[in-house]
């Protein structure tokens, strides 16, 4: 390596550090189970969480089912074989406890650096937070205020202890353990996650938020989130994720289930910023997630908004089953890939009820040598009389080594439904770039501005503070991807 190359390398290294500012490791004592996966490990996880027998059985059943399943390989992503025996399925900070006041100062510092308001401070006072560190939930804020309204917002482990009847009723009712390979794995080993229950007629006054952080080495994170909104209830839920920079890949296989009863509304927003690996494609998180909402009641509404800027590989299709008549499903997505990142993401809208409506807006941006695919299904069953769907998938390419793919499937089985789908793929417009640059704005800022405009339809769906964060994040990610 000659002088210039060395300097260049140093530069890129520091650049990378700048690009992923959440890449630090927190030094905390952890309580871990050995690597590997078998029925004993599952029993041990269940025991550590002091779970009732039905839960242990549920896990074991899922595990047995998982053993008969094959890992899906249809997505347009490539990665080496995953050794499921080489993953640690449980890792918890020793000092973990449920109240912020008792939390380990190291942990608090971590969340402080990540900008998560664990103390109920006024800065982001409108948000109640549940934070998941590796395998366990470490703190849940704003609980009392929520409890007054009858809202339950706690970690999944607590919910299993304190509200077993609700958990038993809804867990696995939207994503059954047999749904797919990763859902089965998650059902067997899930360690924690958030549980959220909004009773009849209650409008959740604050935004609920979960923050996921992978810290320990060689662990997988398998969180399970369940949100139930009863009749006329409303909730807006935000999810964020980061992980330290490491040169090995880590697995994140989460399951999220949403249930909306009559006239209930759930808004689920995600800013996913897992560590994406370095520019050569070493390390990073494998983000294999199953997210599904079920509009069970009439006039219910589920809305997914996602900003995917991290993870080495993303495999994720937040979907809505529109069963109740007049129910509404929405999917707004920005997926950004750079370097060697691979994303295969999209949605499924299953129209069952009459007069159901769905909207899909997907914006994919690929830069570097990344691959970005949209994959979606719009299914209109014969019972979905007068169903309506509008889909728009746009892809933008920055650089000539990346790829953008679109694989939509539309199945229409009734003559009364109207469905339209449009998609475009193009390079970032030279004309627009020229226009902005001719007004004295440098190329990088110009690109950022145009990309921002491209994603506006999605960003405007995010809660305000999140929207600001997403725009900043995208700007940061775009740095050095131009030219």
């Amino acid at each position: 390596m000659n002088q210039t190359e060395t300097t260049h390398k140093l530069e890129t290294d520091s650049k990378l550090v700048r690009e992923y500012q959440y890449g630090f490791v927190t030094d905390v004592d952890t309580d871990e189970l050995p690597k590997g996966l078998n029925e004993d490990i599952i029993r041990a996880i269940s025991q550590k969480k002091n779970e009732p027998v039905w839960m242990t059985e549920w896990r074991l059943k899922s595990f047995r089912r998982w053993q008969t399943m094959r890992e899906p390989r249809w997505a347009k992503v490539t990665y080496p074989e995953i050794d499921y025996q080489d993953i640690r399925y449980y890792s918890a900070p020793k000092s973990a406890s449920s109240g912020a006041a008792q939390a380990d100062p190291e942990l608090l510092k971590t969340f402080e650096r990540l900008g998560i308001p664990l103390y109920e401070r006024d800065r982001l006072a409108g948000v109640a937070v549940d934070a998941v560190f590796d395998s366990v939930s470490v703190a849940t804020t704003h609980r009392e205020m929520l409890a007054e309204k009858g809202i339950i917002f706690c970690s999944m482990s607590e919910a299993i202890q304190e509200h077993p009847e609700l958990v038993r009723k809804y867990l696995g009712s939207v994503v059954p353990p047999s749904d797919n390979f990763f859902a089965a794995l998650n059902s067997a080993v899930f360690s924690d996650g958030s549980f959220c229950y909004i009773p009849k007629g209650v409008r959740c006054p604050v935004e609920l938020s979960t923050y996921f952080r992978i810290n320990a080495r060689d662990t997988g994170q398998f969180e399970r989130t369940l949100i139930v909104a009863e009749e006329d209830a409303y909730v807006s839920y935000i999810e964020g994720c980061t992980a330290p920079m490491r040169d090995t890949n880590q697995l994140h296989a989460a399951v999220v289930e949403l249930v909306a009863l009559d006239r209930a509304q759930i808004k689920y927003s995600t800013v996913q910023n897992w560590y994406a690996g370095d520019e050569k494609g070493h390390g990073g998180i494998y983000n294999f997630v199953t997210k599904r909402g079920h509009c069970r009641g009439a006039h219910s509404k589920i809305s997914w908004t996602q900003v995917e800027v991290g993870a080495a590989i993303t495999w994720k299709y937040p979907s809505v089953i529109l069963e109740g008549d007049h129910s509404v499903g929405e999917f707004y997505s920005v997926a950004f890939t750079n370097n060697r990142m691979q994303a295969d993401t999209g949605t499924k809208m299953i129209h069952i009820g009459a007069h159901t409506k769905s909207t899909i807006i997907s914006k994919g941006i690929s830069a570097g040598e990344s691959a970005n695919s949209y994959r979606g299904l719009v299914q209109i069953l014969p019972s979905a009389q007068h169903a309506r769907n509008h889909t728009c998938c746009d892809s933008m390419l920055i650089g000539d080594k990346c790829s953008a793919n679109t694989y939509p499937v539309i199945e229409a089985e009734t003559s009364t439904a109207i469905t339209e789908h449009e998609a475009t793929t193009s390079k970032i417009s030279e004309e627009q770039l020229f226009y902005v640059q001719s007004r004295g704005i440098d190329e990088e800022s110009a690109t950022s501005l145009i990309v921002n405009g491209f994603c506006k339809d999605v960003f405007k769906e995010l809660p305000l503070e999140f929207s600001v964060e997403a725009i900043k994040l995208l700007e940061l990610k775009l740095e050095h991807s131009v030219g």
Partner: protein
Amino acid sequence: MTTAQLDPAVVMVPGFDESARPAAAEPDLITARREAAFKQYLELPMPTARDEEWRRTDPALIPFERFKPAEAPRRRAAPSGAGPWDDTFDVVVSVDDTGFEIRDNAGLLAQGGLTVQPLAEAAQRHPALIERYLQGPARVKHPRKFSALGDAFWRFGLFIHAPAKAIIPRGVLIRYTHAQSGRSVVPRLLAVVEDQAELTIAEHYESPDDAELLAITTRELYAGPGATLRAASLQEWGARTYHIGEDWVRAERDARIEWVTLLLGGQVSKMMVSCDVHEPNAQAYLSGLFFANRTQHVDQKTLQLHTAPNTYSNLLYKGAVKDQGHSVYQGIIDAAPGAIKVDAYQMNNNLILTEGARADSLPGLEIDADDLKCSHGATFGNLDQNQLFYLRARGLPEAEARQLLVMAFFEEVIARVPHEFMRERVREDVRRKCGDAA
């Protein structure tokens, strides 16, 4: 691998085994190609509904075991009866169960201005030319079961060649009329239009409703530098005919290809068109019209492959489904690395006219280059209620108003058909299908 080790249920399409291979002596060139294709055919498994491509058209819908390969048609000495549109073409090829004939209406063949010959005969006369195209340079995908079958077992092969700068205004009509029940027909077409030449090819498939038939067709069309090739195929098979077709098209520098597929007949049709826009400034216009009523099943796949920079393609497929009809459209635009300044468009519109009918659409984009513009669209719905109201308010009975709107919907594709007789014929078919009670 020898045939003895293979499980015939897995690799053989019933009826197409060693014994079905042509007995008559053929030029070595053809025999060698058949040999190679037969080997491929044996190596490829029989598709099942578990294969992505056949997921929506279960091969079990086609009763392969009921068909025996038809005899190769022989050249007829005396001309049989002429079809109604024959005099609007320069050359007419008609093929039926027992024979075929090539009629030279304008004396073009005699003058050498155009070649239309059985493939085996052409291989004898122009071995170098045939060898070049027999390998199938337009076949951009791996060997597939039914194209390998077609290559190994074709019964009627036709070679069309327009020499450089030849302008053939009225073109060639190929008419397939089959009526013998229980037979499978395997025609193969190879057409080459050389530099700056211009040619139109029209194909017409017909069979009576009571004849049970299987057609496995392979077509390859090449447009050389600056050439213009217009091709339209009108498929009006009877209600008990099954059709599996694979088409491969390639456009070279500055060439223009216009391709129209009109699918109206048959019980099950499984078609694939691959268009390789191969060199800079080549253009391809692909159009399709399909109408599945009663229990018809139509499955079409299109591939717009852009292997070179500065290439253009435009696809418009319009379909209607009625009664228990089911249509599947799958389209891919594939821009290879380096294929910059590409402009590709794909549109699929579907009319769902009655309850019970179903339409699936899978419009895909696979883009590996950056400086380009690719887009696709797909729509589904019934006739526009406002338009229907408008027409009815002017005194049109509902059935008539509906028919008018369906005609209007299809007219955009019909206008792209290069021959008036074919346009009229399609309009008639659409009108009839609109009025058809299930």
